[in-house]
């Protein structure tokens, strides 16, 4: 039987875009406002779970070809890598720095190395959350 959940699918297309945009906003704003890697990763994972719910696991897996176990591992590696990079510069483990950079569109931007650590945290959270959902749902 072919399910005819047109309304759910077409709203999911719009809602997933909104959720992903909002999660990137939360992720980038974590330095000065509420937000950060953890909540950004969780909202990204919620968008992916919404896609799983409305389109089915197989179809989403064909289109997002990411192994979420590897994604979690890469996130932890990035987080550890930022810590060891500060050791290489002769500072204590996990020391962070920041600098002002002239980017082409944004102008004078303050870039902090904590953002890279946050990227690691976000990837680890996305990988873990989606992996939990997938391993629960495949138990048949």
């Amino acid at each position, binding site marked *: *039987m072919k399910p005819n*959940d047109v*309304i*759910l699918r077409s*709203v999911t297309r*719009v*809602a997933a875009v*909104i959720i992903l945009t*909002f999660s990137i906003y939360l992720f980038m704003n974590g330095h000065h406002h509420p937000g950060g890697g953890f909540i950004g990763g969780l909202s990204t994972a919620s968008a992916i779970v919404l896609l799983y719910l409305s389109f089915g696991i197989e179809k989403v897996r064909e289109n997002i070809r990411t192994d979420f176990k590897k994604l979690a591992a890469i996130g932890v590696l990035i987080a550890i890598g930022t810590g060891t990079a500060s050791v290489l510069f002769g500072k204590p483990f996990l020391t962070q720095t920041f600098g002002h950079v002239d980017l082409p569109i944004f102008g004078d931007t303050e870039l902090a190395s904590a953002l890279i650590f946050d990227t690691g945290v976000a990837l680890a959270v996305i990988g873990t959350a989606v992996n939990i959902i997938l391993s629960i749902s495949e138990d048949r």
Partner: protein
Amino acid sequence: MSGSGDVVGVILILIGAAISLISAIGNVRLPDVYTRSHAASKSSTLGVLCTLVGTLLYFVISDGYFSIRLILGIVFVFLTAPVAAHVICRAAYRHQVPLAEGTAQDELKDYYMENENIDNKNTDNKANLIEKEVKLQVTE
């Protein structure tokens, strides 16, 4: 300047709270799933929207701060709450939740009997099997 912001915010948030209260009363008073979902989705969506618009206008008028997140929240709630109600009603109908007494006509019933006969039979069989198992356990 801050006085008018207070007035607009108070009026809109009061309207929103009143509509949410009406929605809650409807949830208690109405007889079956479908009419309850009618009360819960429409009026509580409007209540939340009034509250959010009141907050937005309060911050715009009194602080001069235009919150994109509130706009995003308004759009998101307006988009997803009716779809959630639709999906819940659909799931209820497919599991043959009875309509309220005194229902005059059920136009979906003929369609479901024609097109999704197999599905209905399957669920019936499942229900019968479960009943038999329960009876067996009771007799044992």
